[in-house]
């Protein structure tokens, strides 16, 4: 059986350096009625983490179409979700604006999640 060496648990450090507690809106799987998407059921949760502007190198990990949108980086001990079978991407509220989670990487060494989120532009 393979053994995975776990590094230090940095979640306490992230908690100590957290820039705030943020509201995250999470939706379940999309429900279709007659082929049309219904308004998703959303729940709210609070996430503690560090939010800072995304570096140029990290921006390049996103599709080109997202690189001209404002992107923030969130580091948190709590997992933020991207789009998947379990639901639509999480929306994090930051400074009164909504940001949609685009990537969420689990760092086993350190026990935290590294996420990129793009500003939601409402028409």
């Amino acid at each position, binding site marked *: 059986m393979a053994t995975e060496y776990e590094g230090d648990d940095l979640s306490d450090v992230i908690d100590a350096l957290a820039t705030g507690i943020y509201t995250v809106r999470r939706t379940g799987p*999309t429900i*279709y009625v*007659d*082929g*049309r*998407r219904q308004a998703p059921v959303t729940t709210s949760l609070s996430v503690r983490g560090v939010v800072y502007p995304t570096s140029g190198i990290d921006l390049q990990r996103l599709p080109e179409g997202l690189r001209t949108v404002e992107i923030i980086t969130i580091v948190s001990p709590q997992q933020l979700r991207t789009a998947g*079978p*379990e639901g*639509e991407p999480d929306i994090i509220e930051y400074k009164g604006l909504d940001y949609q989670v685009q990537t969420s990487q689990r760092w086993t060494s350190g026990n935290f999640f590294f996420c990129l989120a793009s500003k939601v532009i409402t028409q």
Partner: protein
Amino acid sequence: MTSWVDAEDALRAWVVAATSLLDASVVFGEQNGTRPPTGPQIIITLGNVNSLGVDEYVQVEEDIGAHTVDFEARGVREVMVQFRAYSPDATGDSTARALLSQVQLRSSFDSIRQALNNAGLGLLELGEVQNLPRVVNAGWESQANLECRFCVVQTATETIPYIELVNGDGKVSSPGSNDLDVPFSAELA
């Protein structure tokens, strides 16, 4: 065409009837949200709308009491519809290509044609079923594409008020003479 909603519903009903897929597995494309549950699924996307010929603009009704006339703009349009099928099965009757082949075949059913016609859709051309399997993550996913051309007639009506009766007072003046009052009236024949 009665409405886009009716047209969409008729297209979807055709796919569901032809493939016997779950109701939740046949959805319209270009919507936000997650894909339907796992298993075979078909996504319907309405595409370009091309104008065929010149649109008409004709008077269709007159309401004498309300002093209005209804005009209708009527145009023939060609609408492209894409059916995109996805299936985890690579062989058998539930592969993406097999599902779309059923959609293609059953378009000749009278019940299907009638339902499409009732929604204002006339089938102009059945496209080819393109087999487009691809590797998703570490495994094959059966995918196929079918594009069809439909003819629809779109109409839009506008109501224009008209003047039935005009009354007015005129005055004719000439130097050295008294002014002459000239009342006038005009009525639509």
